[in-house]
């Protein structure tokens, strides 16, 4: 998504900000917070200056979300102080933070699906108002219609929220938060669910708010987005500030990655060529009536990338190939026969693994143990006459998890005890154990995963491909696809719009994708 960089005007005024010419809207001093044995935050300082975008970066599990929850009053720090406009503030609840003018835009959509757009827009006033009657607390329809206009969301106030698309819901939330005259706006992964045009609207909104003097805290995984918009950057690693509010202009991308990861993580550059013969043939696959059918084949050991931003349909195509959802037409021909559409059970029997997009909803068995999670897809291979061979199952899980580098390596822990990255390793390991695996389909395999885990997952994919497993990776992360794929198919509107062999020029692929997205 680097093309964003050259869109935002590089006006000089942003870089000349001196460090503390004005009092910070919100200042956090040596904030610490730990959970039992884990020290989530050791000593973090953060200054949010009015009229400035302050980016907060950090790997998964670095303490980013804990800091945000403390700023929003959802959590109390063990040590350290929070000051709002110079005065010390002790937030007992989200209510205190909001009355102090700190408003959140959550990436986990905090919408009310069963209520109308009007009620969702008025949620803050309904939540915060004192007194008895609702109508007086709610802004007028005309005002709220104006809010929708500001973010270019052409929906009626009476529409039910659940009938909106994910991107529309995100814009609704942005409209709602930016309409409050907030002192501080906290954006947590806001662009994740947005199409290219919707992201543009967000960045424009942020710009207007910045001019109005709002302090903006922008949290994201996407380096290019951050570099494009941030005035100041803070990077958190292992609970303390690797970079503490340095002006964005003075930082280069590698420096930031180094701060986030602590060691120099080189992307994978060379992969071994794949054997020739075709393993799986995808034919006539259509997800939308108007889309042209998807046709491509995958050879033994070949890694094919489906490049597409959110909403392009890349992940839906991957899910349909793996039998997770039923396509309108077409299917996968593998091992001599065609898998019935939308039959995940048949797909697993034919040796098709699937790592879903949404780890929480469709991937991890939170309250079950590590072994149960890992053996879930390969139960039949551990079962004789209906009885589970728990010994064999434990050993198989132990080996694969050791190879995959589960950290901490505790076989008796429940899945909920692990970080996001390690939970994703559990899901990948489960698919590697599938009996006679010959096609592994993955959708956004390293989203929301720390850089180290991301590298480990890429290595596992390469190892599988070298062992002869064909792999299909649907992802919106171009660098990921460029580094591990033999071939990249660009997806737009549920159709394949172009193909690139390995080694293609990065800007060229992004151009095709951007072209696809325009």
């Amino acid at each position, binding site marked *: 998504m680097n093309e964003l960089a050259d869109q935002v005007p590089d006006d000089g005024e942003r870089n000349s900000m001196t460090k503390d010419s004005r009092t910070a809207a919100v200042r956090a001093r040596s904030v610490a917070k730990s959970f039992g044995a884990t020290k989530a935050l050791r000593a973090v300082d953060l200054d949010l200056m009015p009229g400035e975008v302050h980016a907060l970066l950090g790997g998964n599990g670095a303490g980013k979300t804990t800091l945000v929850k403390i700023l929003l009053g959802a959590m109390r720090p063990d040590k350290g102080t929070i000051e709002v406009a110079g005065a010390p503030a002790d937030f007992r609840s989200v209510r205190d933070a909001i009355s102090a003018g700190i408003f959140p835009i959550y990436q986990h959509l905090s919408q009310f699906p069963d209520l109308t757009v009007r009620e969702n827009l008025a949620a803050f006033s309904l939540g915060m108002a004192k007194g008895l009657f609702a109508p007086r607390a709610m802004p007028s329809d005309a005002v709220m219609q104006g809010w929708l206009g500001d973010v270019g969301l052409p929906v009626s106030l009476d529409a039910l929220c659940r009938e909106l698309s994910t991107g529309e819901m995100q814009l609704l939330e942005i409209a709602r938060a930016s309409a409050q005259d907030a002192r501080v706006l906290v954006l947590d992964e806001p662009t994740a669910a947005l199409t290219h045009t919707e992201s543009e609207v967000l960045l424009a909104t942020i710009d207007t708010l910045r001019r109005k003097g709002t302090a903006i805290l922008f949290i994201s995984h996407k380096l290019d987005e951050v570099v494009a918009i941030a005035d100041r950057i803070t990077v958190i690693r292992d609970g303390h500030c690797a970079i503490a509010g340095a002006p964005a202009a003075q930082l280069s991308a590698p420096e930031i990655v180094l701060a986030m990861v602590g060691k120099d993580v080189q992307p994978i550059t060379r992969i071994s060529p794949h054997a020739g013969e075709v393993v799986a043939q995808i034919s006539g696959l259509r997800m939308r009536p108007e889309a042209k059918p998807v046709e491509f084949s995958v050879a033994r050991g070949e890694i094919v990338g489906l490049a597409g931003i959110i909403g392009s349909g890349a992940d839906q195509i991957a899910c349909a190939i793996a039998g997770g959802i039923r396509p309108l037409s077409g299917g996968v021909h593998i091992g001599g026969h065609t898998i019935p559409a939308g039959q*995940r059970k048949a797909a697993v029997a034919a040796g098709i693994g699937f790592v879903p997009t949404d780890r929480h909803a469709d991937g991890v068995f939170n309250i079950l143990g590590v072994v149960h999670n890992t053996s879930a897809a390969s139960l039949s291979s551990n079962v004789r006459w209906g009885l589970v061979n728990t010994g064999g199952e434990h050993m198989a899980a132990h080996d694969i998890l050791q190879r995959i580098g589960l950290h901490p390596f505790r076989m008796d822990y429940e899945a909920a005890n692990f970080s996001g990255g390690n939970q994703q390793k559990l899901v990948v390991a489960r698919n590697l154990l599938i009996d006679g695996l010959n096609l592994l389909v993955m959708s956004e395999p390293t989203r929301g995963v720390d850089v180290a885990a991301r590298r480990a997952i890429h290595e596992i994919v390469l190892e599988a491909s070298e062992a002869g497993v064909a792999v299909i990776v649907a992802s919106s992360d171009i660098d990921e696809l460029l580094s591990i794929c033999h071939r990249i198919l660009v997806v737009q509107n549920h159709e394949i719009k172009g193909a690139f062999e390995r080694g293609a020029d990065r800007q060229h692929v992004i151009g095709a994708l951007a072209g696809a997205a325009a």
Partner: protein
Amino acid sequence: MRPGGALARIPVSVVIAILFFIICALLVPRFASFGNLENVARIAAILAIVSCGQAVVLILGGIEFSFGSSVALASVVSVMLLPAAGPALAFAAGIATVVLVGLVNATLIAALGLPAVVVTLGTLMIGHGLAASLAGGLPLDAAASPLFKWPAVGEVFGVPVAVVCAGAALACLWFILSRTELGRRFYLVGANAPAARLSGIGVRATTFAGYLIAGVFCGIASVILTSRVGSGQPNLMSDLPFQTIAACAIGGIPLTGGRGSALHVLAGVAVIAMLNNAVVLLNFPVAAQQLLIAFVIVASVLAQKLASSSLAVLLGLRWRSEP
């Protein structure tokens, strides 16, 4: 599979049950006598067998209300067929009736995907309506032949039949849940049904099997109950669903699915049976009995909540990833 060493593997409810036993043995006169304990076991047996059925459904993330009338329906059917078919066939018909109710629930919930609360509430009412219509309101008397009476009063090596059946039911539940593939699938579907589906597990088939097995457990219990009451009763143990849910909850089985074992069921049923017996021996008036039962149900579920969180934190087992 709870985190931490062996200590955390024993369910908290077993500790509660043992403590409860000790308290009763000390405070309640004649509680610890063999005769009384046998009586407690006899009463607890039926609740244990049906609770095994309820546990399977709870682990699946569902719930089963229809026990409240399927047992009564089975007793009416058995007694009506008794003169013509004789005890063995009559009891078989009783079991078949309950399994049929389980089949209806399984189809509506698994195949059509309707919410379990509404479906089992509906079959509870339909079942009671059928039982009362068939019996015409009045309990049907059964010609008490020795074979008909055997399940209630008979003994195997000195142990009441009901208690033997309860032991067999608990063992069978333990075996299904910990050894068989079907049992493993109950846990997976209960913990995260969409993830189970994407792992190639037939969620609908698993749910269907779960409600069917619950029906079989309940059917066996209905035989003992019919024999014990010696008649076809349209209102037989109508509070059975709540008793079994309370037993599983006290036993530590969360109603959200994914966890639970035969040990939990045993502990929960033991607490309720001892409680019902103790209040009688203490000669409490009915009002006080109900107040105490209410208090213990809520207190033990409370203890579960506090214990599981503090115990785990206390022992530093919970290595909590950054929330």
